[in-house]
């Protein structure tokens, strides 16, 4: 079997094709929004938000009549729970009386516990719960695909519209305030964006693994390029590639698809960490050490004797 066949063979199945499209879209959207998550050091927030949508999922399941066919209701409930949690964390932190990571932790466990409590009250839920925790990319329905496209497309469009403002706030919030940018509004906007992305990714990688899609491609990209637009584009590429190849991997060696996608992501990150030019581990060990010492020596000479041409 040649390579083309290897790639095309699984796509005979409609569910594989839909899964692949969903996974690639999720990979791109997660990576783009995840770039801001990485730059602002919000990894914990992203993870918390993913877990905090559990009660939304449970309620969506209840009101959707318990049938997994009606995922539309579930999607909106999950999005509601995510936005509620994001805004709740923002509101608790605003004013500076509670530290942000404490607020995140409290909302995270509170909502997750509420989710478990709700689920434990419904006996029949056990089967589908693992799908929400770990994703079920091969169960993507045409409606799900539309939701992913719609939510992801809106998220990307929002990032495009507010790109400069979001970057200004991410880099230097004080400066953004002096420019009279609506800093509080932009911060909430980012929280809502992350919430949307987490819900969109629910189907492919699930609650427990969505954090990987948010931060791993963006972190890999940050080790490879030096400017933000390039980092965002490369992160999207890595995210899309990892999602697609992870899905093929899961097909050919029969492992859980969400886990396969995340493993490819993390594997790629480790590779980058090892071999990235300038910032990679190998580079630093082999090339950086000597020139750096020499430079320090020259600086010292220049400081002691400023007239010696330093």
């Amino acid at each position, binding site marked *: 079997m040649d390579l083309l066949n290897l790639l095309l063979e699984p796509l005979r199945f409609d569910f594989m094709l839909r899964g692949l499209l969903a996974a690639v879209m999720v990979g791109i959207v997660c990576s783009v929004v995840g770039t801001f998550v990485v*730059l602002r*050091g919000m990894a914990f927030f992203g993870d918390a938000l993913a877990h905090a949508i559990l009660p939304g999922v449970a309620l969506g399941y209840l009101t959707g009549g318990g049938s997994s066919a009606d995922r539309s209701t579930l999607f909106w409930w999950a999005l509601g729970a995510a936005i509620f949690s994001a805004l709740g964390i923002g509101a608790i932190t605003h004013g500076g009386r509670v530290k942000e990571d404490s607020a995140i932790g409290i909302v995270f466990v509170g909502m997750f516990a509420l989710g478990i409590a709700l689920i434990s009250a419904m006996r029949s839920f056990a089967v589908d719960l693992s799908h929400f925790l770990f994703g079920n990319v091969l169960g993507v329905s045409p409606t799900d695909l539309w939701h992913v496209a719609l939510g992801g497309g809106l998220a990307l469009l929002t990032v*495009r*519209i*507010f790109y*400069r*403002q979001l*970057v*200004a706030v*991410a*880099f*230097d919030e*004080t*400066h*953004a*305030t*002096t*420019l*009279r*940018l609506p800093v509080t509004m932009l911060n909430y906007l980012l929280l809502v964006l992350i919430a949307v992305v987490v819900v969109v990714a629910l189907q492919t990688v699930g609650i427990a693994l969505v954090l990987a899609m948010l931060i791993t491609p963006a972190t890999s990209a*940050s080790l490879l*390029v*030096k*400017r*933000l637009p*390039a*980092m965002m584009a490369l992160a999207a590429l890595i995210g899309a590639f990892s999602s697609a190849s992870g899905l093929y991997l899961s097909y050919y060696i029969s492992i859980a698809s969400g886990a396969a996608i995340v493993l490819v992501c993390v594997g790629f990150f480790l590779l980058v960490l090892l071999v990235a030019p300038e910032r990679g581990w190998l580079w630093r060990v082999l090339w950086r050490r000597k020139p750096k010492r020499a430079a320090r020596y020259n600086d010292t000479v220049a400081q002691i004797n400023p007239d010696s041409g330093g």
Partner: protein
Amino acid sequence: MNHQPLSPATSNGTVPLPALDVQNLTVAYEQTVVLHTVSFVIPAGERVALVGPNGAGKSTLLKALVGLIRPTTGSIRVNGHLHTQCNDVAYVPQRAQVDWSFPVNVWDVVMLGRTAHIGLFRSPGRHDRDRVAHSLELVRMTDLARRQIGELSGGQQQRVFIARALAQDACVLLLDEPMTGLDVRAQQEVLHMIDAIHRDGVTVLVATHDLQQAANTRYYERVLLLNQSLIQGGQAHAVLTAEHLTAAYGGHLHRIETEQGILLVHDRH
């Protein structure tokens, strides 16, 4: 303690609108009053040194002027407009709290000063690029425009943030202790830069604790002496008098008039 405003420049007979017109500004954190009914007027285009002991409220005043702190009472007008309506005031903090590994180079950082001018969904236009290039020229960082911000020295980082403030097209520039932590040569460079910015028509207010520099009329046209309230504002020889210095610093500073200017001596040992 009196709160006499600086008199506006009247060299050509007309009175232009002052760059900054501050009236009865009071700022309190929780219950503690940090600034008490501060009033002053700064004529357009001047370089003004803001001096006072530690805790005098110099940083607080600058933050209030740029809108980072909401004053309890009082009004701030920039070129005659209430300052909440415009971003004509730019501010460079003593030490910017930023992530130095952020994936931006010098050019990108200065372009961030244009953010409010570039509309949503837009990319920087020719005018934006011209402003960035001009700002970089003023702080003499043109050669390093492609350098990552994390690879700059402390003095260079400071200059990039000054350029970012200039690119904002503000007519008033506030600098909080720009000389702190710099060696003498780097301090001279910053003073030259302030001079270039001033010749570009920008009003510059510099918080500093170097009284000697503040007293030097080559560097500053005016001095504001602050200790929670404004002790005196005006020209250096009238502001930095024994009486005013005692009011601001207690009895540890002595003033000696020399041919080169005013010499201030600290006797706390």
